[in-house]
């Protein structure tokens, strides 16, 4: 097990190196001279030279790349170009609000979607099944923007059930007061695709021989669906959930923006609007690392749910 994990971590290095080179290429080569972005067009040559020296842009490319690698390893990306806040502290303070929304959202989405998928798969081919699938397909076609605009208008603005936007200081207040409507919207958007996908995973299992055997030996339908079928269908479900987690961190940016939640996603949007390259660079690299780590975690979880899986 340990040997497996070490080998997998070792294999991440070339990919991570690729991500570093890609990000470096984008921001230091395609993005042009950062001194001009930073100084604007009005400052004089002396100022520009000064900034270039500070950023190390006057060095050859390989030295700049080495500076970037050092920044990643030490976690010290310097300060934001626009607010002068340390980037490490930006990431650390923006992470908790994002997680306050995303963790309950992911857990609720998984529970609801799996339960619904089991129910729909159980009555496969029936009118209920077809109606649910049609609702899902149509729901999937409406842009997330529309959900946010309409839900915020109806539930917060018109009915006043939730605050229109904002974020507090205490965790409880944030979770139950400010995060509830964002979580509700997130569920409205994410359940439809999850449900459709999980249903097909479960349908793949439901016609297998072991299901017939379980039925023949007199097990209850509940036990067959929730234990036998679900355990076998859980590998693709875990893959899907784990693979979508890091993306969700960014994917929730629209929700964070509309509700003024000071999370990672909103920070990315702000950084793009302000051309704040160091912030985007740091977040991109760390999210890529998180993606790879979550892939590894998914593989380790396979072993936990399915003893047949061999970790090689």
């Amino acid at each position: 097990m340990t040997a497996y994990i070490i080998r997998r971590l070792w294999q991440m290095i070339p990919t991570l190196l690729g991500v570093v080179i890609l990000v470096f290429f984008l921001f230091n080569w395609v993005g042009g001279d950062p001194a001009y972005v930073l100084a604007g067009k009005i400052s004089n040559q002396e100022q520009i030279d000064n900034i270039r020296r500070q950023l190390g842009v006057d060095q050859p490319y390989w030295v700049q790349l080495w500076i970037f690698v050092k920044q990643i390893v030490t976690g010290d990306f310097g300060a934001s170009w626009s607010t002068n806040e340390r980037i490490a502290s930006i990431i650390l303070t923006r992470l908790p609000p994002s997680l306050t929304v995303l963790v309950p959202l992911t857990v609720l989405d998984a529970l609801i979607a799996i339960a619904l998928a089991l129910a729909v798969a159980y009555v496969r081919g029936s009118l209920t099944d077809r109606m649910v699938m049609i609702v899902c397909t149509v729901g999937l076609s409406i842009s997330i923007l529309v959900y946010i605009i309409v839900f915020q208008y109806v539930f917060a603005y018109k009915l006043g059930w939730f605050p229109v936007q904002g974020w507090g200081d205490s965790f409880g207040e944030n979770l139950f007061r400010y995060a509830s409507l964002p979580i509700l919207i997130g569920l409205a958007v994410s359940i439809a695709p999850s449900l459709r996908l999980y249903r097909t995973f479960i349908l793949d299992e439901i016609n297998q021989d072991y299901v017939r055997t379980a039925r023949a030996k007199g097990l209850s339908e509940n036990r067959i669906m929730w234990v036998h079928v679900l355990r076998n269908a859980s590998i693709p479900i875990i893959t899907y959930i784990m693979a979508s987690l890091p993306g969700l961190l960014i994917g929730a940016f629209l929700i964070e923006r509309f509700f003024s939640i000071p999370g990672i996603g909103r920070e990315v949007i702000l950084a793009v609007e302000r051309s704040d390259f160091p912030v985007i660079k740091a977040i991109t690299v760390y999210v890529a690392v998180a993606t790879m780590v979550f892939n590894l975690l998914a593989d380790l979880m396979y072993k936990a749910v399915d003893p047949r899986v061999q970790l090689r």
Partner: protein
Amino acid sequence: MATPSATLVRAADGTREIPHTVSPGLWTLAWRRLRADRVGMVSLAIVAAFLVLILLSVTGLIARDWAKEVGVNYAPPSFVGADIEAGTPAGPAEPEAPVPASEYKSSIVDPLADVIAELKGGKPAAAPGAAPVEAGSVDPLADVMADIRAGKGGKAVPVPVEARSATLPFGGDKWGRDVVAKTIKGSETSIFVGIASALLATALGTLFGAIAGYYGRWVDDAFNWFYSVFNSIPYLLLILAVAAVLQQKGMLTIILILGLTGWTGVFRQIRAEYLKHKSREYVQAADAIGASNARRMFIHIFPNISHVVLVQLSILTVGFIKAEVILSFLGFGVPVDVVSWGSMLNEAQNELILGKWWQLVAATVAMATLVTAFSLFTDALRDALDPKLKGLKGH
């Protein structure tokens, strides 16, 4: 060679019953299966209708004058009735002012003309782009002004108040532009961006996948490394990072962003197909008759996997239409003077609080209809082209 001519002779003799059956090919069979799929055919018809609509809009047959302010500001839909506060003009309620576009060019009221004239030191406001630049001052609005003068671009074209109507078929926006025409124009932008970037991404993915799968060995390793690099950065983050770097906005920029970042899914599928096909007998036969690598890859193998490409293309189109809407909404997408579903939703967000819901509904309905139809059509297409897969992939 003797047998066919023999049958021909017999046919001429009058037997007439020649069992001349061409066995149907992949595409014929797929079309037959698709025809039998009622949902698939209906969605195909809807998608085709949208395509015809944007074709008409590109050629200027409809929605050409979408930028004209034909109604009062926030003109409500006709079926709701005129807004009392808006002050109904006495003129006849013609939805479109019957003035040809060419006359507008000359009769544009330039709201900034006086300001510009002052800035230029009392000189008459001629075409600002051509005016001599004084004391190093560059007119930041020169290009925009030139665009307005040329009568192109998305800037609102003012219409005298008397000619404006109180209601429009499906309401008007902030400037009184017809929402129906605006939605058609917006569909043109969104669908065009979606299809163009999907074509680019599919072409890239197919090319990379073909090379990686066909050559194998270190070439495959290199492309797989490239793939895992792109795949480990969440898609939206990658798009935003590229948007941050490419400062200029435009249709081409957004097509490039989506196309250059979205090829990974296609690559994985096509690579697997090439791995499967490269050792098949027909490829060995092609090798034996001396076909070059490129010829084997694209003349021999490609037609056999083209159905996978087609399905991937339509999956990507749906995804990119959605992505374009989000990017344009955030202001990283199409330029300000181009209307798309995303920019309509951006305006609609503030209008909803004022109670003006029609632009939101128009953009949402148009987008939901197209995307639903396109997704259902994609499912039907996949089932028709590859019946073995039916029901396997939920997507």
